[in-house]
């Protein structure tokens, strides 16, 4: 995807896709308007199996809107949204789940007061028996939940404990394990490390890598370029509702990514002005020209 500009509509030749396979999920020039507010426009994004696509961006850049479209909570108002090459338009998260797109939300992944195993199977409970006496297959659910959690390397003493008593990282991991178990092919992670400590973030990143190794396509939304660079294969930086940078791992260094994320492009443009102000250290800021390399330099609005 070298030097392709953000606004380009239509089929973009896939970036260095490993074996040229069809993307699981593809957005082409997708956008979303709430009334007269254009939250997102001209976004291209592809998700391949066994690859982690990182979406970075500051607050208000449109990350949440983007995942809400893909996860079925909202519908796009422009552009195309394809799953397995076929255009789709989800009206409920259930439809997205049925297509194998599972979302792990930062804050609403679980119901805190419910036991771990009930949370694990919530919405897709295992049952046994004919209708009037159809009941939960509790033993099988507990056993499966325990196995799946152990497969992901999570060992819990007591699956009956309310999930609210687990740490934030553990909760995210349970949610990821749940998505993997229910046959998710695409896993969307909404800032899974935002509220976590350093060590817990590492644990979550490990599970992201594990999910990727099990063949899932992962969309990893974050505003931490360090976390993104540890597991990412492709990076899209959103700014003001559109893609500012879209680059493969081979085309961008952590430093460049960090600069982009930190609003580096904007700051660089202001470098000379900032230099005039006492107490603002501009030494470390890159020159404006340095940032243009893989970046989609076009300003917004070409879509």
């Amino acid at each position, binding site marked *: 995807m070298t030097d392709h500009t953000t606004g380009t509509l239509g089929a973009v030749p896939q970036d260095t896709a490993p074996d040229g396979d069809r993307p699981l999920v593809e957005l082409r020039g997708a956008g979303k308007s709430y009334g007269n507010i254009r939250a997102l426009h001209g976004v291209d994004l592809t998700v391949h199996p066994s690859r982690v696509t990182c979406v970075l961006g500051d607050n208000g850049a449109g990350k949440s809107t983007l995942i809400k479209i893909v996860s079925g909570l909202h519908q796009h108002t422009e552009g195309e949204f394809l799953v397995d090459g076929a255009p789709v338009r989800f009206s409920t998260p259930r439809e997205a789940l049925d297509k194998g797109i599972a979302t792990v939300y930062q804050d609403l992944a*679980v119901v805190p007061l419910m036991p771990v195993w009930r949370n694990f199977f919530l919405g897709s409970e295992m049952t046994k028996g004919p209708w009037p006496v159809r009941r939960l297959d509790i033993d099988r659910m507990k056993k499966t939940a325990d196995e799946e959690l152990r497969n992901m390397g999570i060992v819990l003493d007591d699956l009956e404990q309310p999930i609210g008593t687990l740490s934030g990282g553990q909760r995210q991991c349970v949610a990821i394990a749940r998505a993997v178990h229910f046959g998710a092919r695409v896993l969307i992670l909404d800032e899974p490390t935002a509220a976590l400590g350093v060590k817990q973030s590492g644990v979550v990143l490990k599970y992201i890598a594990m999910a990727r190794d099990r063949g899932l396509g992962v969309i990893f939304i974050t505003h931490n370029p360090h976390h993104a660079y540890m597991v990412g294969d492709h990076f899209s930086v959103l700014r003001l509702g559109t893609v500012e940078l879209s680059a493969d791992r081979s085309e961008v260094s952590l430093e460049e990514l960090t600069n982009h994320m930190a609003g580096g492009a904007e700051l660089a443009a202001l470098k000379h002005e900032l230099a005039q102000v006492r107490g603002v250290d501009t030494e470390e800021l890159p020159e404006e020209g340095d940032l243009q390399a893989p970046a989609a330099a076009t300003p917004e609005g070409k879509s």
Partner: protein
Amino acid sequence: MSMARQAEPAVDTPPAPGPKRTDGRTVRRPPALRLLARPEVGVFLGAVAVLVFFLFTAPPVRDGSSMANILYQSSTIGIMALPVALLMIGGEFDLSAGVAVVTSALTASMLSYQLTLNVWVGVVVALVVSLAVGVFNGWMLVRTGLPSFLVTLGTFLILQGVNLAVTKLVTGNVATDDISDMDGFDQAKAIFASSFEVAGVQVKITVVWWLVFAALATWVLLRTKYGNWVFAVGGNKESARAVGVPVTFTKISLFMLVGFGAWFVGMHNLFSFNTVQSGEGVGQELIYIAAAVIGGCLLTGGHGSAIGPVFGAFMFGMVQQGIVYAGWNPDWFKAFLGVMLLGAVLINLWVQRTATRR
């Protein structure tokens, strides 16, 4: 620089925990404490305490027939407290539950009497009306996103007014006419308001219905998909929706369940007293809610049981009748209830804090 190492996928860095048995961070709590963490245990102890108290202070309570009377009193509260408790676990409450009972009874009574139909027609139409009230409450709530307090307060006032006005309009009186000599009355009475003898004591059939419904509700709540959804929509509606739980269906059906309860109690009142007073039912909704809360249901939803409200309703029936049997002024009843409610809530709070602390 450490860049090169960072660039590696993180998967090989953290040591794999290995298949150990436990994570060793939680100590298994003693069985007594784990038992106390259950929502119905606090109220069970409370009910036993009230029972023992009245067994000592009011000798007539020891008699079998008074106990049957206490259970009957408890059952009329308890049958409604059950769906109200389920609704509360589902994160909502229904202020119209008290007058909805009267609405249901009035519908059945007036329809059968005025059109001279078999009472069963009235009974069925009353069921439809009660369920419709539930659907209206639930649908309004889901569509508007208003708190259930406001929506059901509106329904409460509407039903209260309609009950009085329509009854006066139709019968010219505040009460309905006696339907005891109409077709099908005896059959209906056998189901809703008969009594049977156990060891020389007359026991009302509502006691049986109450316990059957409680067992059914417990099974549904703990052993079915639907029960799982009830806990989920009360605990965290957004999460539930995001993982595919039909939140709208669950909420509306819970309100319909309250409608069903109101219909059942309404039919009981109609067939045991033959007429209905149109102004009744106001204030009962708070009794049901109180019984559910005393029964360990969390007012904010997501936690509770169906057994708890059974004991909650029993405490109410016990106190109500116990005061009479003890020969005290029954005016004290409500004051007693208030103390009991606060006491129960505090005990529940304390029990949960100590028992769920890690």
